[in-house]
């Protein structure tokens, strides 16, 4: 039995944990943003999934380089996929991909601004808002939320990805300084990243408190900025504002439209696998769902989230849930218990995939192959899983 002094000594000797460096979400294809995946995520979150057994409409607000909407359009020829981004270069990239893969069901909105009807009077079954709400100004943010709220079909699902306050709030002042300097730089555009990095290096060497004495900021600078690809520094940190948001803020914005939180599109996020017993106990005992999510983010310093919402919260009874889960088709070897932690882990790890609910059209694989060839990265578009590997 240890005495008090020994316990105190032991506490003092506890090594500080290394800082959790925030990383932005990848820019390419993301299978957790496909309708097939979101259908499974909604179901595993205990809610009635959207009806994807018939031709559906999906909208991508923040289409990025277009790979995710293009994959969805390629493997679901009978569905209408609509894409928009506030970044003009991303709109252009998506259009080029669509043209290269001849995806006639992918509509890329090229005019400036976000149309209130998302390009159609037909409602959407799935809407994905990726990397938008944590960047744009208050007015555009309100427009996006209004467009989502008024274009989603009752029972439809929404997935919002964003950089969290927990992950990025300490980074934001440095990023703001970087962007301020880059925007006013009058030198050769090729050298702007170097000049921004030089300033940061000077501050670091001179002992600037915010940069030197904050473990997360120092580690992020070393790993992401000084140790990162200059092109990525430009894209991720100099091109746009950084306005990280929290889960609670998002819920507050979406709640007036009847959008209810289902769970994370990253299926293991809700399992708290990376936290110790004491934190797990606190998360479980949190006095409200919003506090629980806040504690979860703080517990692991979660940098990004992919939150799934359903228009009209409808939790399934255990009987209904079992019926749906047994009907859920999965590729590859998987545990028999569809509600198990193991299943979520395997899905998240990419070992298995949910299969497309909509029977794939005869020309789907041809289109998928064409898109695979058009995307100059190592992904293979697969019609059977309504996604890509």
């Amino acid at each position, binding site marked *: 039995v240890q005495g008090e002094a020994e316990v105190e000594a032991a506490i003092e000797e506890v090594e*500080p*944990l290394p800082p*959790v460096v925030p990383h932005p979400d990848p820019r390419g294809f993301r299978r957790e943003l496909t309708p097939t995946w979101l259908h499974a995520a909604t179901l595993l979150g205990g809610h009635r999934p959207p009806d994807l057994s018939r031709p559906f409409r999906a909208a991508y607000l923040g289409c990025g380089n277009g790979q995710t909407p293009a994959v969805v359009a390629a493997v679901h020829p009978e569905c209408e996929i609509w894409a928009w981004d506030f970044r003009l270069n991303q709109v252009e990239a998506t259009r080029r991909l669509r043209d290269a893969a001849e995806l006639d069901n992918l509509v890329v909105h090229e005019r400036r601004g976000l149309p209130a009807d998302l390009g159609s009077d037909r409602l959407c079954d799935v809407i994905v808002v990726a990397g938008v709400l944590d960047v744009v100004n*208050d007015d555009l943010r309100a427009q996006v939320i209004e467009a989502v709220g008024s274009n989603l079909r009752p029972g439809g699902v929404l997935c919002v990805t964003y950089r969290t*306050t*927990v992950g990025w*709030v*300490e980074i*934001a*002042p*440095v990023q*703001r*300084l970087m962007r*301020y*300097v880059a925007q*006013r730089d009058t030198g050769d555009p090729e050298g702007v990243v170097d000049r921004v990095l030089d300033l940061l290096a*000077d*501050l670091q*060497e*001179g*002992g*600037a*408190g*915010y*940069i030197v*004495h*904050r*473990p997360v900021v120092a580690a992020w600078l070393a790993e992401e900025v000084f140790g990162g690809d200059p092109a990525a520094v430009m894209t991720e940190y100099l091109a746009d504002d950084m306005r990280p948001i*929290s889960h*609670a803020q998002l819920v507050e914005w979406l709640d007036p439209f009847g959008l209810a939180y289902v769970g994370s599109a990253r299926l293991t996020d809700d399992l708290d696998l990376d*936290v*110790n017993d*004491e*934190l797990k106990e*606190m998360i479980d005992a949190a*006095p*409200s769902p*919003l*506090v629980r999510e*806040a*504690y979860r*983010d*703080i*517990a*692991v*310093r979660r940098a990004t989230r992919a939150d799934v919402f359903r228009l009209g919260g409808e939790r399934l009874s255990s009987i209904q849930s079992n019926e749906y889960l047994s009907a859920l088709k999965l590729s590859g070897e998987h545990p028999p218990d569809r509600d198990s932690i193991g299943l979520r882990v395997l899905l998240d790890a990419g070992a298995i995939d949910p299969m497309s609910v909509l029977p794939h059209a005869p020309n789907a694989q041809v289109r998928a192959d064409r898109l695979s060839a058009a995307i100059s990265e190592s992904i293979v578009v697969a019609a059977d899983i309504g996604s890509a590997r």
Partner: protein
Amino acid sequence: MTADWSDGYVVDVPYIEPLTPELCPARLSMAAVLHNQPPIPDSHTIQWIDVGSGSGLSACMVAAANPRISVWGFDFNPTHVERAREIANGAALDNCTFVEASFAAVASDRDLGPSDADVIVVHGVHSWVSPVNQRQITEIIRQRLRPGGLAYVMYETATGWSSMVPIAEALRLHAIADGRRSDHAFEEAARDVLRLAEARARYFPIGDPESLQFQLLTERNSSYAAHEYLGSHFRPVMFDELATIMDSKACVYAGSVDASDHIAGVWSPPELTDLLAHTTDLLLRQMLQDLVVQRQLRQDLYRRGLAAPTPDAQRKWMRHLAVVGLGKEYVDGSALTLPIGQVRVDDEFYRPLVDRLTETTLSLADIEAERSGMTLGDAATALGFLVEAGFAAPLVNGWETGSAVSSARRLNELLIAENLRGGDHRALVAPATGAAIESEYVEMLTLGALWSGTPDDVGAITSHVLEQLTRQERLVRENGVLIENVEEARIVVERRVRRALDRAQGAFVQLGIC
């Protein structure tokens, strides 16, 4: 916690009642001059507006110490406005008016209060209200600040508070789930959130300035903490955010009200001095400075249109700057806390200056003449140190000639009377400074006893103070430790009474309090 009409601001517990000397015209005037701008003119009745005046105590301080100034306070919270009027009426201050009005109402109705203000202050508001209300506030400044007028905006900065944002949100969400009144709900929430760190949540460790705030969560006055953390819109901001908006309202950053703001060397370690000195972009330099020292709050001074005075005019304004002593004793070898850390100052230079302040006021010209070879800039540095270290405060020229002494006395008597009924005021209005100075409970009660006719006798006043402490079930605290032993408490109180009596016959006379 918050109500439908509160727009996310905590309204179920009143805000604490700080007295903020930085809001007073003399302090703002000094800051303007030290940044090469003209002082606030004394050629007409100054219109001074406090936007978001809270319980009005600071506005009343300005009104009492500056009877020739017309003071206006706007606040959307009826509880605050009622309290502000109670203080103003209690001290018979006829030069201040409090109006219950939202920021939107003030921005849309120019008939509410003066339309041609000389000074607009926004203290403890900007980092805690919604972006919509922030825009309304800057619009009020645009509409009402006359050309050449000064706007003071205090806010918490991201460089010293960013890590507290997720923690504040967790506290707020916890308090909402709790459902009790904010101050009670805060205490429970703080205990729970502190456990996250103890349980090694990966969000920790956070920045040093925030770590200190975090560790103090459960020790804070819970009413204060509820306002600090439980509002829906708590968001520290960066300097350039506000400066850019103010610029769009034709208000230019003139400098900070911090007394050491004009002293370049205290804002960076030597290794970064050149970098900052060669940064010609004013906004960038301030952002860099804030990152270097992890600045927690800013007290920025904006001017509606920057003046371009001649060097002669600048020198004239500088030489007219003067300070009055606050009665603080100089201790050789003690360090001054500045943005870059603890700094030792030259005892041989500063001790005589502080000693002189016990006898007389000092102008910048006096300080300049103190040592041969000293420049006006050197003297301004010395003056900044004297104010920053609490030895002196800017002097209001001609304060003796008006009714400031009597109006300040009325407000001080009211504060002391409230302390006798359980209040917790820790400041006295000092007409010579046009503001308030820090005071402590025993000192205020000593003064109250003298003013109510108790003989100038240490024993009698000590007994009187101890009686009040006992009646209010308050304990004396010495160096942060509660003194529970009655005899020890008497010794401590007696010592403080002696000191208070000394100050009443010395510094307080010079300050116009007695």
